[in-house]
């Protein structure tokens, strides 16, 4: 397992797509920051705490991280299937389990990197261009919110990876991930409404997790971590069960 992890990280850091993805995240974050600041209902005084919270919620939960994460993950983690280079690994005795978990670790590290680049860019843009001012307490909340968002996006990243593994054709898995990301929460919300289920469906839906985190709430760690662990276990089981009997063409 450790050899495969070393190899996966070598690939992650030597693949130009990783760095292009991070630069893209920074550019995208600038665009998102501008859009939020210029949108009608955000034209509030950004020195106001409520407006600041709204800025960061819109920035992190809805836009800045999820799109770059989806694009980067779809690009980075499907080439081995497209190039069929993973069969050289399996033929050399590396188990599909080791291969999958090395990629899980990589995608989680990628999530942290993308989240970090996004929040750094967002903060720099907010401070320099929008005149954002934050005190120590707000910065502490922001840091906590950043960590929660990273875990929540990590949950989505695991689902993205599992779908890429199960489908293996990059174009199809990326499209499906995009559809699930955009319409999944919407469809589940409608179902919840129709069946009077409260938030039973969206509450456990990976792509909805970032939107469920409140900026100032204190008791969300357990729920977020439970959902993360559940997705990690279920997605791993699904991938490994399917892969166990699958041939590599």
């Amino acid at each position, binding site marked *: 397992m450790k050899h*495969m992890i070393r*190899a996966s990280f070598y*690939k992650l850091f030597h693949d130009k797509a990783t760095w292009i993805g991070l630069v893209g995240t920074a550019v995208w974050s600038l665009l998102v920051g501008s859009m939020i600041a210029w949108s009608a209902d955000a034209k509030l005084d950004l020195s106001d705490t409520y407006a600041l919270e709204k800025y960061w919620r819109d920035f992190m939960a809805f836009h800045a991280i999820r799109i770059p994460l989806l694009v980067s993950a779809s690009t980075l983690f499907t080439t081995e299937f497209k190039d069929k*280079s993973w069969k050289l690994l399996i033929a*050399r005795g590396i188990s599909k389990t080791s291969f999958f978990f090395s990629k899980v670790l990589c995608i989680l590290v990628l999530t942290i990197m993308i989240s970090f680049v996004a929040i750094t860019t967002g903060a720099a843009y907010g401070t320099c261009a929008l005149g954002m001012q934050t005190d120590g307490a707000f910065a502490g909340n922001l840091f906590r919110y950043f960590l929660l968002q990273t875990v929540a996006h990590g949950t989505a990243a695991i689902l993205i990876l599992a779908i890429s593994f199960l489908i293996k054709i990059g174009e199809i898995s990326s499209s499906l991930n995009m559809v699930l990301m955009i319409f999944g929460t919407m469809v589940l919300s409608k179902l919840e409404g129709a069946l009077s289920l409260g938030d039973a469906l969206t509450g456990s839906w990976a792509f909805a997790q970032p939107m469920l985190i409140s900026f100032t709430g204190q008791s969300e760690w357990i729920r977020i971590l439970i959902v993360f662990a559940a997705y990690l276990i279920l997605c791993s089981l699904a991938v490994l069960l399917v892969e166990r009997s699958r041939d590599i063409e």
Partner: protein
Amino acid sequence: MKGIVKTNALTKKYHGFAAVSEVNMSIEKGDIYALIGENGAGKSTLMKMLSGLATPTSGEVILFENQHPEVARFRMGCLIDSPALDTRLSVRDNLEMFARAFGCHKAGEVDRILELVGMTKHAGKAIRKTSLGMKQRLAIGIALLGSPDFLILDEPMNGLDPMGIQEIRQLLKKLNEENQTTILISSHLLDEVSKVATRYGFMKGGHLIQELSEEELEEKSKTCLRLKVSDTAKAAMVCEKELGTENYEVIDAETIRLFDYVDESSKVVTAMVRGGVEVGEIVHVGESLEEFFNNLMTAEARQ
């Protein structure tokens, strides 16, 4: 001899169609085993099962005398189908990445492989910008990482120019002679394969129809003149005295095989008659590997 691979009734079916059927083969240490067959004969499927890429429908594969498959496969290098390389990494980065994954990343290993497959000056090139021949060399290089004991090479000469084919052939011979590396190779270039192989397995329709050693095949495909003569002792004397060759073989009381003068049958007949030997029949026999293969396939198709 130490067993490297043994299969027992190995079968692979896809939707009821048997791509490989009841194959029993054994490869021993030091063999260069050539797997020969037409397209769709089941060679690649058999190789995939040996390398763990395909799960057998029935039967078993025993590697390195019953070593656990995941452990055994660390001792194997594979090139199956087209060169499967990470197209977004450079030549060197591909080797670096696979060396780490195989647990054989140490100082100089990647340079050794680059040198071995003649890719040193292309090390920094992106895979997208390399030719098929270069990709093939690199894929062979990846298979050689960590000096495996057993190599599975499916059509390794594909895409190589004549010089490249010669270099790879020499490399395989060197690995076999110096490191006792066992090699399973499939190729359409029968003449090329025959220059390195020590054992042959012929496949058709998913079945392994014949296995031969290098000597057996040589014997079967040796070209010679087969003569039916009145006196084989006299005929042998004519060979030695008149024709000046000892390269003959007396088969029975009236048959002799002459391995020289193969294209000069009239000269042979004249010498025999002059030596007082009556020649009842003279036949040119023997075939190249290609002819042998074609005849084998035709005979199999008739059955």
